[in-house]
């Protein structure tokens, strides 16, 4: 019995010591919108072949992403690397390593800085909102649509696409996620920003804002936009892929997603406007975290990834808009679609770009505007809803 006990003790110690001796694996946190995770995995494989350094790609659903990252940092187990949005960079900036002198920042746009004015991210891609249309469905029902050289107003667009209502095989003319990120372009297309000067004077109760929200409310009331996403968590992209919708308001991150999933013809066309054209600009970056235990290895990887050969491979293979100056990305079969996204960006006034960027820096703002879209879809007085939104937004900024 004693021998058995001693043997178990020795075995336990061996297991414990071998566990202690294992080298900590370098992790990169990631979420997938389309096929870009596969492209990053190819780059990681290439990096391993060149340097012998193994980086594990940990793919999480976007809805849980920030919570997981927050928990890891709070628990002292920060990942070495993570794909991040501007919101993440803002929320975690004091936990992210400075990338000064790691790569040549002058080659890139869309930087983010910490309190000390040091760059803390390597921009990976730029995103822009846009309008996907189902060409098969529109041609079948004889519906015209805007094109790159022929941008429509919202009135023209609604009049034409409303012909789809009640048509065979059509659930609704369009589909839209009830999110701040989809509603704000409508605000900007009415020629209005959310704040005059950041966080002091709001334009939320202006006639333009009222008109923008009224337009959205009427879309839902008239069945112009599918109400079903309101009954479930957001799934507009999945609904569009059923082929029963004429248009899908989304962004360029859905190009590869739609391409692999649909059996109808589709393309991207310019979003309509009221006063001016406008899209929302965003982007994803790569960040290295402090206290990961592999800080230098993470910085070495970022330096490697910033080189043109690797960076251009990522944006080209994942079909992303590149933030690298002078990069020549061939979008191949999606060249026409990307031409539209680039045109949307070029047509967007800088004040709208800045207004949106300042919003994403406020934790908690996004769910509040999501609520607004849901409240508007339900009905109710638009001005009262906007006044309530203004009160809630000011509340979280205090």
């Amino acid at each position, binding site marked *: 019995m004693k021998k058995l006990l001693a043997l178990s003790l020795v075995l336990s110690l061996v297991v414990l010591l071998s566990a202690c001796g294992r080298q900590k694996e370098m992790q990169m946190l990631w979420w997938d919108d389309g096929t870009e995770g596969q492209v990053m995995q190819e780059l990681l494989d290439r990096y391993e072949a060149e340097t012998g350094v193994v980086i594990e790609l940990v793919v999480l659903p976007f809805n849980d992403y*920030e*919570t997981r990252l*927050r*928990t890891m*940092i*709070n628990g002292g187990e920060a990942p070495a690397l993570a794909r991040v949005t501007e919101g993440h960079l803002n*929320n*975690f900036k004091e*936990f992210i390593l400075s990338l000064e002198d790691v790569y040549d920042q002058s080659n890139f746009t869309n930087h983010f800085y910490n309190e000390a004015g040091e760059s803390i991210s390597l921009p990976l891609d730029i995103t822009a909102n846009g309008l996907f249309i189902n060409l098969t469905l529109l041609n079948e029902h004889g519906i015209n649509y805007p094109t790159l050289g022929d941008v429509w107003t919202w009135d023209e667009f609604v009049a034409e696409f409303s012909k789809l209502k009640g048509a065979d095989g059509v*659930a609704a003319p369009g589909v839209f996620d009830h999110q701040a990120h989809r509603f704000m372009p409508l605000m900007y297309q009415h020629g209005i920003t959310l704040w005059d000067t950041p966080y002091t004077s709001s334009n939320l109760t202006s006639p333009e804002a009222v008109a923008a929200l009224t337009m959205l409310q009427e879309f839902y009331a008239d069945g112009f936009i*599918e*109400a*079903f996403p*309101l*009954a*479930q*968590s957001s799934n507009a992209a999945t*609904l569009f892929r*059923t082929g*029963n919708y004429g248009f899908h308001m989304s962004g360029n991150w859905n190009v590869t997603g739609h391409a692999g999933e649909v059996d109808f013809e589709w393309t991207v066309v310019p979003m309509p406007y009221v006063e001016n054209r406008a899209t929302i600009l965003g982007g994803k970056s790569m960040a290295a975290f402090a206290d990961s235990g592999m800080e230098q290895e993470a910085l070495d990887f970022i330096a490697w990834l910033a080189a043109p050969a690797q960076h251009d491979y990522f944006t080209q293979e994942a079909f992303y808009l590149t933030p690298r100056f002078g990069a020549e990305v061939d979008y191949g079969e999606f060249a026409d679609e990307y031409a539209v996204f680039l045109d949307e960006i070029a047509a967007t006034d800088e004040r709208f770009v800045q207004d949106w960027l300042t919003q994403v820096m406020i*934790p*908690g703002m996004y*769910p509040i505007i999501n*609520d607004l879209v*849901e*409240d508007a*879809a*339900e009905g109710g007085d638009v001005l009262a809803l906007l006044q309530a939104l203004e009160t809630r937004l000011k509340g*979280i900024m205090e």
Partner: protein
Amino acid sequence: MQVEQESKSLLTFKTKMVPYLFLAPNLIIFSIFIILPAIIGIYYSFTDFDGLRSPNWVGFENYRRLWEDDRFRAAMWNTIRLVVATVPIVFMTSLFIALIIIRPLKARGFFRASYYWPVMISLIVVGFMWQWILNPRFGLFNSVITGLGFNASSTLLDARFAWWGVVFIFTWSRAGYYMIMFVAALLSVPVQLYEAAQIDGASKLQRFWYVTYPSIKPARIMVFILAAMEVFKIYPIIVTFTGGGPFRATRFTVQHIYETAFQSYEVGYASAMSVIMLLFVTVFTGINFFVSSRGERDA
């Protein structure tokens, strides 16, 4: 003599300690994973903790905010309404099935397994399954009724339909679990009581009301409290069934707390909500115990 007395008292001490030693492992686990987080949660409710940075003490500020928070009040009220509607339905359904199933039916085992089957399906999957069935655009339910010549229903786009849908699928999913408790209790009622009641000329309904119902009191209390707790904490089934929609019609307290903590990252504020919910559940359970034990005390 003294040695004998000492060894006797040691034996008594050991006899007294042994049960506690057996309880210790569970108590330690319970303390680490339930009691300690609950205490930390109460502490967070007095701070501005965001889940990342060191919390700052804010006193009763979170509770003051709660008082003015319409959305929290709406979620809490919605949850109370759900408890009031669902618990009696689950209670009666499970008791009714149990009463039928203990009778000497052919294939009793098959029926018992069939009613218990939904309990074995994860609540997340139950939500998904019924969401597919009741999907207003592409769901099985609308396919069937339109196939029969009726107009398609707006199903989950209709706030009232979605709310009662939650009641229905919760009952469908959990009645089997409580049925097992009732079956065990019903089978333990002494047969002599029924025989005596029958000799006294009691009808079937009277036998149920004066013999069965009082005899299964412990099971009744247990089912009532467990079902109420479960409905108060309802969340996974909602996430996949309706996501809290349409228009927040099926948004209940736990979802609101979760989103406040992990979408708005106001962990301190969400902790205050949890404390209020804990108080509600405690008061509810206390009232239930008081009402249930009133007869015993009077006796």
